């Protein structure tokens, strides 16, 4: 109603998303020197979602920024790397991802609420 072509924008977004996913795949195959049908399996879609949420993108829509998602991706990987190097084991990575996600999303909710209350 405000003249914004919603369908076109949604379409463009999905195309961009597919493009970025493909780029990710290209990078991964370069890193591993291999391509195979099961290389997309490891729950990557969930990881991507988690990082986006960690970067403050709201699932209700309308809120978030590319910069914070990018920063979140870097931070996330760094934390993961530290974890691996500390020798806590690979299983810990998953547990960490999970607990981290829950804690982050709870904190964000609380921060939002406090920000509204202050006004």
């Amino acid at each position, binding site marked *: *109603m*405000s*003249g*914004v*072509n919603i369908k076109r924008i949604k379409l463009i977004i999905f195309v961009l998303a597919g493009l970025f996913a493909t780029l990710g795949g290209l990078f991964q195959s370069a890193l591993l020197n291999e391509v195979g049908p099961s290389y997309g399996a490891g729950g990557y879609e969930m990881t991507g979602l988690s990082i986006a949420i960690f970067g403050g993108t*709201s699932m209700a829509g*309308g*809120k978030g920024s590319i910069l914070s998602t990018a920063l979140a991706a870097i931070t996330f990987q760094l934390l993961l790397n530290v974890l691996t190097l500390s020798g806590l084991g690979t299983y810990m990575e998953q547990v960490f991802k999970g607990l981290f996600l829950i804690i982050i999303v709870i904190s964000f909710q609380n921060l939002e609420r406090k920000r*509204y*209350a*202050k*006004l």
Partner: protein
Amino acid sequence: MLEALLELKKVSKSFPGVQALKEVDFQLYPGEVVALCGANGAGKSTAASIIAGIYPHDAGEILIRGKPVQLTTPKVAEQHGVGIVYQEPTLVARMTVVENIFLGKELTNKYGKLDFKKMKQEAEKTLEALGFDLDVNRKVSTLTMVEREATEIAKAVLLNPHILILDEVTAPLNQKEVDHLFEVIRNLKKQNIGMIFISHKLNECIEISDRVVVFRNGENVAELDCTKNITEKDIITPMLGIDIKGDLHDVVKEGHAAEEKEVLLHVDNFSDEENFSGMSFTLHKNEVLGFAGLKGAGITELMFALQGTIPHTGGKMYVHSKEVNPRTPYEGIKAGIGMVTHDRHKEGLALSLDVKSNISVSSLDMLLTKLGFVNERKLDERSEEYVPSSRSRPLRCTSSSPTCRAATSRRLSLLNGC
């Protein structure tokens, strides 16, 4: 002296950023209808919500039959004999009438199994007593507005409340239905039920109520006795806080200097398949053209078609004498037609963005610098012009007046070729 059914003593309530009620005093006696009038944001619905137990009040006392009460939840209010018909629909669309009437108060037999037969009987009895004829097994999503209103009223009176709040219940009704509803209200009066009638239709308030209480900016500013022949102006004056000189109608006439006027929009035999046909009218420069009609008469659909949101099948439109045929809102805006919808929150604004971002939505094309980036300075100027002193906080937290302005300015900014 009759004991007051309900009394509010210096009740205050504030939400983040706004003081909704300031030390309000209010009484309701058995068998009387008190109209509660006030502009948007004056505190009427807040007061009603507090009495119904939706929010707790911050300060002051609430007494029911002389006893102080804490109306912490809707159920507690219900137990104290408060019934309320809300302004916004509170029905679960996919459930039936009887399920909605008994929502939260279902009847069960001694084993805990729902007693459908008894609920059906009770629901039918209640509706009949109110004078409505409705098949209680129909899903709410199939009902007309009147039938939904009837269901809401039946739901409110099910537990025989002593205090009944009616918030804008006449909004979706035509004159005959309003008369019927007033009959129902008069019947309830005879049963000594006290009613709070909230409505912006002042003539109705005067007709049905014994007293009119006026709220302004969260305060109780006036109380009028309806038996003393009051007029709408007597209510409007305290409502707005200004003195309207002369007759109401004179104010409107001032804008109508009959000079040679430029024609902005000419519509000829405009129609679409189902909602309207043969619409022809002209809109002049500096003119406000009002359209009145009931819900379902086709006005909203006509407006949407003019702007291009829905298609039309026949007729022509001329803007500045040039024919236009907008098929999308974008084309409508390009042709110079902007629309601020009724449901501003859902259809007009991005609530999590601030005022600046919202205003720029439609007119982004015209705010760009040479390199294609958004010209922030120009945007700031524009938004300050339309909605002064708007801080950059999410629209969700502002009261209704800035949001209205933001929605309107969104359109205006575009049309002004900003």
